[in-house]
């Protein structure tokens, strides 16, 4: 049997995932006196999609934007991160976003590298700009140091595999230690849990077939928050809407909005309606708000589409390269240098990447809490709000504060050792490790990707295909659970990630079946109409007594 560490940890607030959202939750909770543990799959200094940096932070700064916030709310909804927000969440986020910017600046992340607040890139011509340009290459180091300074206990290499609830309230969680080759389970009694596991990648085939880790966002982020929240009885929302990122074709770990250029066809004609020559102030927002342009151009036979930076001013080129470095794209910059890809003379092909979950997932309230008492979520796995780094920072902070407050009212920790869920997981992990033969996690993950691509993709979706896909996926999951094999702690973690992804996939298929219309990238071939009556209606899914309850609700 897989060993269970004899020492059970205790936390007022257990934060699952030490990315931007998780660390900000931890910092605020610890600042309020809570005993906080961050359980992180890798190492908080370099984990998650913000591992080596970011350079844009959505925010509202009254001294720049004016006292009326409404135009900024509108811009947020029209931006690449808008679309499926509860309006009240957008407002609360914008109200607090500048406070988080000031925190980061004070702690040593350069939020105004030129000495003033600058909104550069991700911008429409003639409209207010909402993306603050910053230099975030040290963001994870700084946030980790701030968390430690407040007494947060960081447990690296400890992915959480299940949240434990009792009578509808959170009482703890199970971690899987991957520090050594031999895995071990670690139990944590917790008064509250904040889920902050980032985006969900590896659901669909990557832009390089068979190369699962060639993803724009961190491929270790695999739907843990959505799957654990769903199993615990929380609601998931907006799961039917695919989201895609875009950037250099075949090199997915790269950005797009930091480039200062124009997206053009092979003849050099701009493909978007916004800019005609490289402009530092705007970038080319076509790739943000119409990122199917790359696929559309390709399918029409008029592709490929290129990022064309020719004609860029020398000082703007320097600015762009610095921005790309702070966005964490140093591997790409070195490659370009070695390969002689000088953007003043070469155009780089851009493409749309595979769907992944960001801003689709766990439904939270204004305090960051889910429908399960004591269970919170923050950042990319939240389903009714999205603002990427800034959203994670702001709602991470809110969720951590709310969790700390709730924990103050709970006097005792509850015993979780020997509970049925612990026994189940011990048995299952032990089985995976004991099997001598069987499919690897890679087989299971690739099988999942092909089903998601063919039956819940962005090309064709219909009642018959989605229904068939659901049957196939459930068959696959049964087989994977019954036969999959792990060799060590690392592959055991990957096996469990793959099962989480399958559960996310199942919810996507169910939600996609329910939405009988075409909206955004949710293209129903059997319901091609975009029904205005459904514009502000969200679909939620919740597990109760073994059944999945699907409900519609109004946008709040």
């Amino acid at each position, binding site marked *: 049997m897989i060993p269970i560490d004899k020492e059970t940890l205790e936390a007022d607030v257990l934060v699952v995932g030490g990315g931007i959202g998780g660390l900000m939750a931890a910092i605020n909770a610890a600042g309020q006196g809570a005993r906080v543990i961050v359980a992180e*799959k*890798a*190492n908080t*200094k*370099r*984990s998650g999609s913000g*591992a*080596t940096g970011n350079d844009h932070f959505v925010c509202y700064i009254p001294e720049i934007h004016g006292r009326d916030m409404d135009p900024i709310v509108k811009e947020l909804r029209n931006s690449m991160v808008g679309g499926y927000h509860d309006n009240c969440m957008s407002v609360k986020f914008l109200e607090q976003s500048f406070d988080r910017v000031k925190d980061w600046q004070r702690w040593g992340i350069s939020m105004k590298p030129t000495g003033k607040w600058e909104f550069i890139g991700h911008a429409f*011509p003639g409209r207010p700009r909402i993306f603050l340009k910053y230099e975030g290459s040290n963001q994870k180091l700084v946030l980790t140091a701030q968390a430690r300074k407040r007494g947060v206990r960081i447990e690296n*290499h400890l992915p959480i595999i299940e949240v434990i609830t009792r009578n509808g309230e959170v009482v703890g969680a199970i971690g899987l230690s*991957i520090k050594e080759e031999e895995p071990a389970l670690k139990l944590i009694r917790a008064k509250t849990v904040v889920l902050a596991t980032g985006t969900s990648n590896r659901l669909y085939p990557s832009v*390089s077939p068979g*190369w*699962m*880790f*060639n*993803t724009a966002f*961190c491929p*270790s982020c695999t739907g843990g928050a959505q799957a654990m929240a769903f199993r615990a009885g929380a609601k998931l929302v907006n799961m039917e809407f695919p989201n895609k990122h875009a950037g*250099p*074709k*075949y*090199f997915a*770990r790269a950005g797009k909005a930091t480039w200062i250029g*124009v997206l*053009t066809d*092979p*003849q*050099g*004609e*701009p493909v978007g*309606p*916004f*800019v*005609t*020559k*490289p*402009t530092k102030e*705007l970038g080319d927002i076509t790739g943000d708000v119409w990122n199917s342009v790359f696929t559309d151009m390709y399918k029409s036979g008029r592709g*490929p589409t*290129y990022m*064309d930076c*020719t*004609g860029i001013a020398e000082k703007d080129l320097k600015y762009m390269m610095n921005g790309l470095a702070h966005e*964490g794209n140093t*591997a*790409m910059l*070195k*490659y*370009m240098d070695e*390969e002689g*890809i000088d953007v*003043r*003379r*070469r*155009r*780089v*092909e851009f493409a749309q990447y595979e769907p992944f979950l960001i801003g689709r997932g766990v439904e939270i309230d204004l305090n960051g809490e889910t429908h399960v008492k004591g269970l919170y979520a923050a950042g990319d796995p939240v389903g009714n709000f999205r603002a990427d780094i800034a959203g994670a920072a702001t709602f991470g902070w809110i969720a951590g504060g709310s969790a700390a407050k709730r924990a103050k009212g709970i006097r005792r920790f509850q015993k979780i050792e020997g509970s049925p869920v612990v026994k189940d997981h011990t048995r299952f992990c032990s089985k995976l490790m004991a099997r001598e033969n069987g499919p690897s996690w890679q087989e299971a993950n690739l099988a999942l990707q092909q089903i998601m691509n063919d039956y819940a993709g962005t090309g064709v979706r219909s009642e018959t295909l989605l229904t068939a896909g659901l049957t196939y996926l459930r068959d696959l999951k049964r087989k994977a659970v019954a036969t999959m094999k792990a060799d060590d702690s*690392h592959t055991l*973690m990957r096996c469990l990630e793959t099962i989480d992804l399958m559960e996310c996939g199942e919810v996507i298929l169910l939600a996609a079946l329910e939405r009988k219309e075409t909206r955004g990238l949710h293209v129903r071939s059997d319901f091609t109409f975009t029904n205005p009556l459904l514009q502000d209606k969200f679909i939620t899914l919740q597990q109760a007594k073994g059944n999945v309850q699907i409900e519609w609700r109004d946008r709040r």
Partner: protein
Amino acid sequence: MPPIIAKEKCNACGTCAEICPTDVFRAAGKRTPPLVKYPEECWHCNACVLDCKQSAVTLRLPLPAMMLHVGAGKSKSLSGGKGEKGGVRR
């Protein structure tokens, strides 16, 4: 992929294995450079290269991730056209 560790530069501090977001490395022992155990799981984030104090780690980008690029050539619109001002379409 994969990260390549120059053994003559590596002092076996284990930092790369410790900080890799995708757990590509396995620490091999106190005086041995870490093993690049799961090279196909590299995300190309460059954390191992950035954090190696010995500058012992480099990334080799795999062929499927090669960046596609062409010469810029002529582009009439980029010089500006009718109804366009300051590089912005009106």
